[in-house]
């Protein structure tokens, strides 16, 4: 059974066991506009919570994506280098960025639930 949590930087994290899958939210994808390039972390790289992990670029600008939780990168989405527009088409599904082996489950528990994130976005 997986659970999805969110950050105020508009990333989502889906936890399956100790594997966290990370991407950007629908709201973030809409704000960015058409995504034309995504730079993803290499497998094996260790990232700390809040550390720079990826870069997403729209026609106009580049934005950093921070790791919402710390851990070791186990995979990055190969489909995004061929078709970065997947981030706009299905940001919280096929447009995932990378997976990591979660170091500390406590970090996940501190993130926003779907309801709290929805409220957060409404207030923006």
């Amino acid at each position, binding site marked *: 059974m997986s659970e999805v949590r969110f950050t105020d930087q508009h990333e989502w994290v889906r936890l399956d066991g100790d594997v966290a899958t990370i991407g950007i939210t629908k709201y973030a994808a809409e704000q960015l*506009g*058409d995504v*034309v*390039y995504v*730079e993803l972390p290499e497998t094996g790289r260790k990232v700390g919570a809040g550390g720079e992990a990826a*870069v997403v*670029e*729209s*026609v*106009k*600008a*580049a934005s950093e994506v921070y790791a919402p939780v710390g851990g070791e990168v186990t995979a990055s989405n190969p489909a995004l*280098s061929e078709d970065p527009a997947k981030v706009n088409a299905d940001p919280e599904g096929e447009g995932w960025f990378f997976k990591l082996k979660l170091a500390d489950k406590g970090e996940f528990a501190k993130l926003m639930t779907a309801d709290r994130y929805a409220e957060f976005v409404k207030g923006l």
Partner: protein
Amino acid sequence: MADPNEVLCKTPLHALHVERGAKMVPFSGYEMPVQYPAGVLKEHLHTRDKAGLFDVSHMGQAFLSGSDPSKALERLTPADVSGLKEGLQRYGLLLNERGTIKDDFMFSRLTGEAPLYLVVNAGTKDGDFEYIAGELKGIASLELRPDRALLALQGPAAAIVLERHSPGISKLTFMKVVRCSVAGAPAIVSRSGYTGEDGFEISLEAIHAERVARALLGETEVLPIGLGARDSLRLEAGLCLYGHDIDETVNPVEASLVWSIGKRRKLDKDFPAAEKILDAVFNGTAKKRVGIRPDGKAPAREGTEIADKTGRAIGQITSGGFGPSLNAPVAMGYVETAFAGDCTEIDLIVRGKSMPARVSPMPFVPHRYRRAI
């Protein structure tokens, strides 16, 4: 960056942009549409495929009159103004006394009219007008026209669309300008633009702007286009954005804009810092503006360092992004002249990593100007 307390001006089309769902952003003191719901990518491709309508009313419009306004204006630009025939428009550089670029602008000689019609950039217009009026005091007078709006209709379908609202206008060829009526409103129309596509710029009294814009947007071929796509279109076309690719730190030779210096002007040497600029024309400059195509897919943005293959810094990107029509990143920037040759291999330092790239001829996307009917 934008000052949150800055009071932003609105163009006469502001309400229409909001109605069409535009995302409004501060730009050169104006609240302008950066994109509409279609998004930058679709807006860009639509302009190259059919036609896009741009609100460029934030740009500065003025008339320069006097006993010989052309001769007067030549004090401040190396363009051939006096030699411009009636009914034609031309691109020029406004130079300061040091011979570096204060702005780039368009000037027109309307048929049967003595004053020159000028269009300058939005972000520089106050300074430009003050400079022109001050420098030409006593020999020419500048009449500002903030009461005029400016629309650009760009793309391969622009001519058939505009013809429906201004019969006969499609006979105008590239860089020609005429007074005519558009959807019943008196207008100054030139066959020009800043996208690399065929198209028109339409200057109107502000009171008619919204009605004319609605009439053009009512045509099935036309979508409203924001500043985002305007920027990617002009970059693919190899055209400079003032304040980024050209400014008061570079002269026309460094900027690769020597073509805008009139032949007669080179002989007469009577423009600002003429000796210095002509010396640069004949002997070269240390750096030069070039087009750049990264080998990979990652865009290199403004400010990115350019290095040679040994890692030595040789320049900087001044405009860079993704070119939707090429489906690849494109950029322009300044490099040491030894590296300015087409196809020279260089590196772009993006997020600490060296990305291979090549100096490339511009435009990146061929211009499709309508030079003959």
